[in-house]
């Protein structure tokens, strides 16, 4: 050993990568020679980092109390600042609400101008409020959800780090605004727009550091986007990453949400057992008091899955117990989902009059809401009722109406072709229940898969 031993502080500085290049060089030179005495010191600084991956045990020995006390001063300082900041954030939050109200009172075209040009509207809490409002509208009015999410994106792209207490928070806000836009467009069946928004979300997510909780939320949205595009492996990967983060953060209710989303992937790939398993686990984790809407969604999916597997009696019983939750949620989309499910279960139990009333109601509501694809699917369910009742003229009429509704709202050629086949068979009184099921199933699959081809049954 030819070089002198570095001081313990220098060794610590070396492990932390904090020395000047010359000092780094001197310590490295010494360590390259393999000095056991100094390596003993550096190993003690290094080793804790090697066990970081297992953060389960955080207990420290009593003799390490001194180490803990070394943090008191810092904690005091930060706590003091945070308590002061909390009051400021509360003020900003109420300002954000006032700006939101002001913004929404303006005509739509003026809103964009204000967000683009007025410094007064460059407010993080306004952006948060827009995102919240977009999320709230998903269930009631998907078109509005998309419009509001567009405003959130417009604003988020104009905010600066200074508006958001740092780069990380700004990046988180931006990526969340884009993810909400993608999700709103997906729900509003604008798959092209959703794909673009999700591509932007992914690019922002990979290009910047965002808070962990934001990352998990955004990954959930991305998973839903992948699911809508039928990219099942990627959807599962996104949901798994999101679930891992929620577990790390101890956010069990959010983990429940993610499992609910995973169940959707299982349903799509025909893994019935997995679908039921994830739905039941999700229902165990989601708190119905704190998260009634998501709990209801999980219950709804479970009832639907039971119906699809022919377990109509179980579906009926669960629907009976779940009805109060739909009524409590009270928003239009949930009430329509309830009515649709009631129609399906009634149809499964051969109660055709009840089924007909339900399907007619929801079809009209979907037309009114500009949701032509759902209206077409409800029409096919209605046609099933008429076929079972032997009402050929009504089948033919519904087929024509369905075609007209679909043509007015959609450009999906293959889905249109499927409906044409059904319409033509109905006209010649040759539309049976199997054909309706086939066309309905094709429409559900083709909804998110424009490349799917319809092969006309023989």
């Amino acid at each position: 050993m030819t070089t002198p031993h570095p001081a313990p502080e220098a060794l610590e500085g070396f492990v932390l990568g904090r020395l000047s290049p010359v000092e780094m060089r001197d310590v490295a030179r010494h360590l390259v020679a393999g000095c056991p005495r100094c390596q003993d010191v550096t190993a003690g600084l290094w080793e804790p980092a090697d066990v970081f991956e297992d953060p389960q045990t955080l207990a420290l020995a009593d003799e390490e109390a001194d180490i803990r006390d070394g943090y008191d001063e810092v904690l005091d300082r930060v706590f003091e600042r945070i308590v002061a900041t909390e009051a400021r954030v509360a003020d900003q939050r109420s300002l954000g609400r006032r700006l939101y109200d002001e913004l929404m009172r303006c005509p739509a075209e003026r809103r964009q101008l204000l967000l683009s040009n007025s410094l007064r509207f460059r407010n993080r809490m306004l952006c948060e409020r827009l995102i919240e409002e977009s999320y709230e509208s998903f269930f009631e009015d998907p078109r509005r959800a998309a419009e509001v999410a567009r405003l959130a994106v417009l604003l988020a792209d104009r905010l600066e780090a200074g508006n958001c207490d740092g780069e990380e928070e700004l990046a988180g806000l931006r990526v969340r605004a884009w993810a909400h836009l993608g999700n709103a467009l997906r729900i509003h069946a604008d798959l092209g727009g959703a794909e673009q928004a999700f591509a932007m979300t992914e690019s922002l997510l990979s290009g910047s550091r965002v808070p962990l909780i934001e990352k998990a939320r955004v990954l959930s949205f991305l998973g839903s986007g992948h699911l809508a595009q039928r990219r099942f492996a990627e959807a599962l990967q996104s949901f798994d990453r999101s679930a891992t983060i929620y577990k790390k953060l101890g956010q069990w209710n959010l983990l429940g949400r993610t499992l609910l989303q995973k169940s959707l992937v299982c349903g799509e790939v025909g893994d019935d057992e997995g679908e039921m398993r994830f739905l039941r686990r999700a229902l165990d984790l989601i708190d119905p008091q704190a998260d009634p809407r998501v709990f209801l969604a999980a219950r709804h999916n479970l009832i639907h899955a039971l119906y699809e597997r022919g377990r109509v009696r179980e579906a009926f019983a669960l629907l009976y117990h779940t009805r109060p939750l739909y009524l409590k949620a009270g928003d239009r989309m949930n009430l329509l989902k309830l009515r649709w499910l009631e129609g399906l279960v009634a149809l499964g139990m051969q109660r055709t009059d009840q089924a007909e009333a339900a399907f007619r109601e929801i079809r009209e509501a979907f037309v009114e809401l500009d949701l032509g694809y759902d209206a077409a699917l409800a029409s096919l369910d209605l046609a099933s009722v008429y076929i079972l009742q032997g009402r050929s003229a009504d089948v033919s009429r519904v087929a024509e109406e369905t075609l007209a509704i679909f043509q007015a709202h959609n450009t999906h050629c293959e889905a249109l072709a499927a409906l044409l086949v059904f319409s033509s068979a109905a006209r010649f009184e040759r539309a049976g229940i199997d054909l309706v099921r086939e066309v309905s199933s094709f429409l559900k699959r083709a909804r998110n898969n424009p490349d799917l081809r319809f092969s006309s049954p023989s």
Partner: protein
Amino acid sequence: MSALDQPQVESFLDGFLKKVRPRLKTLFAHYRIPPQDTEDLLQQALLALIYHREGIRDPEAWLLGTLRNKCLLYWREQRRRLYDSVDATVLEFMADPLEPAQESADLRRDLANALERLPERCRSLLALRYRQGYDPSEVAERLGYSPASISKITTRCLAVLTRHLVTSGSYKKKVGT
């Protein structure tokens, strides 16, 4: 939020901070974060908690989980800086024409000994880098790695080398006892 909610929020924060304080100290001590570096990590996490509070069901679990992650990222960043420093230092040693002959020979011998103890893959990669002066794209070509992955593989090998430099004496001693 109504005006009446305001004092409630403040009292939540006061009570919450009091409650989590001992756990925060234990966590930072466990991860050996130097106190001066704790300030930024904690402030960022608490700020995020204030902003996202409405969407967070269990704030304590959330805060501890977030800080664990920040501690990991902190060390990852420190380590990355250390690997870069070790790499730059070794490259500089090897290129330094002013080093007296004996010292230079000693250094080469010590480095060769250090490399000798590394896994084969890292030994070949670092030998090409340090002894023959190949740049990453040439190393990738020689060893059959894709240009896209060579940076990641080099970092892994630098991590192994650094770990060896920093801990090998200690391990030898442990094995010996």
